[in-house]
């Protein structure tokens, strides 16, 4: 068994959290509240060290007075607590929105739309090795059919009849396969978290797993 006090604390807290699987109890409540308190304390220290100190204190100590402008803008958020002046809070919100849209819209369109449309097209390289499971023609055609049919399922401006109905029904199968893959991955993720804790409890704590 481990002789490290911190390993013991972590192990006992893990067991306290696991105890909820049986039923709600004071040990679980204690661990839950401790976690909340610790997280808040951690965030405050982190925000001071990595944010306020580096982006406000250092620049001002170096007489970079321009820092005061965004700082003043940010402080306008505090007018949220002054009912008569709370409209001033809209100024930093407007600046943030404008900035965010300005820098994200062009790159998002490029990365999400143009590149993805390009990736859906069948290209000449696919003919070189049609049966390649990653970049072959067959997979390329499957991607095209999948995209067109799935998009057609979400086309609600016309009643799904005739060819549109067939296409939409094929589309829903593609969507279901996607959900299945996501579910499989999700199960693996949740099991991995349990495995991580068991490796800690039976490895680092009681040394049963080598």
């Amino acid at each position, binding site marked *: 068994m481990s002789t490290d006090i911190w390993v013991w604390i972590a192990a006992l807290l893990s067991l306290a959290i696991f105890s909820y699987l049986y039923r709600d109890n004071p040990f679980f409540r204690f661990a839950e509240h401790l976690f909340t308190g610790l997280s808040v304390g951690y*965030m405050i220290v982190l925000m001071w060290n990595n944010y306020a100190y580096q982006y406000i204190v250092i620049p001002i100590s170096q007489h970079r007075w321009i820092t005061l402008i965004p700082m003043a803008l940010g402080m306008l958020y505090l007018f949220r607590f002054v009912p008569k002046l709370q409209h001033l809070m809209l100024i930093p919100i407007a600046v943030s929105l404008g900035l965010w849209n300005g820098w*994200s819209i062009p*790159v998002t369109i490029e990365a999400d739309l143009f590149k993805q449309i390009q990736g859906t097209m069948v290209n000449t390289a696919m003919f070189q090795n049609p049966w390649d499971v990653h970049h072959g023609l067959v997979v390329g055609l499957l991607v095209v059919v999948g995209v067109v049919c799935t998009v057609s399922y979400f086309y609600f401006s016309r009643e799904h009849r005739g060819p549109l109905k067939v296409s939409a029904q094929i589309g829903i199968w593609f969507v279901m396969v996607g959900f299945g893959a996501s579910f499989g991955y999700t199960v693996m993720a949740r*099991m*991995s978290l*349990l495995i*991580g804790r*068991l*490796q800690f409890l039976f490895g680092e704590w009681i040394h*049963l797993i080598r």
Partner: protein
Amino acid sequence: MMIRLGTNLGKLARLDRRWIFLLIFLATLLPLLVSLEPKHFIDEPTRNLFNYIDGIEPGGRALMLSFDYDPQVAPELDPMARAILRHCFARGVPVIGLSMAPQGDAIGEAIITQVVREQNRFRRQRNQDTLRYGYDYSFFGFRPGGSIVMLMMGQDIHRALPADNYKHQVDSLPMMARVRNYDDISIIMSLAGSSYPYSWIIFANTKFKVKIGAGQTAVMAPDNYPFLQTGQLVGQLGGMKGAAEYEQLIVEAGYYPKRDMASKAMNAVSFSHLLIIILIIIGNIGYFASRRQGGNR
């Protein structure tokens, strides 16, 4: 006969869920106690990532490793971080660590410290120079601001990261003298349980053309396949399986002596999945049997 079986399975559907928790616990723990390490089929995204990192010139452009995750997903992502760091340090690739997630700060520091200590032990045994902070690796901790920091680093990393995690000014770190912006970064590896790799693609790859690799929790991994197909991501490690594959690759290439936690965990993943499949089948049979019984009445 079938109806009786259906009735029994129908009862199973009403089983106290704590019995299922116990079964899952046993199906996960027992394989962990047996130290089997089956060989894995390596997925293409994992191999592509390994090949890319393996092609980085030793002592050349740095790899930026971003610990964009919190402790709740650490079991999946910690093994990836260790495997990538071992690969880089064994090859002499400089590493710049940072985090876009608040709690990734402490995780990143702990993992880098652990791997550096272990690599230095190997190096001393072989009479090689040990890894030195500021020369071979550096760590900048949590960077609040997300996309702003990603954009700012494309213009000037020294302005975006004015001081490291230990409050040393960036200009005082010798390895950072050759790193001005993304042109001096070989690849950004984002390890995340959320959509941080997507942000890196949008703000770093699309705008500045720097290569991006992802290490994602299994929940998030399927979301990245469109970006793998278009080449916006060089490669990806998906969940515990991706970590186990990378561990296998670095061992096969001779960069590390033995496989680690993720490889050992894969048996437990397989057995627990098998149990869940069986439970799903039983649950469905029970459901349909009880429905048919209801209809007969």
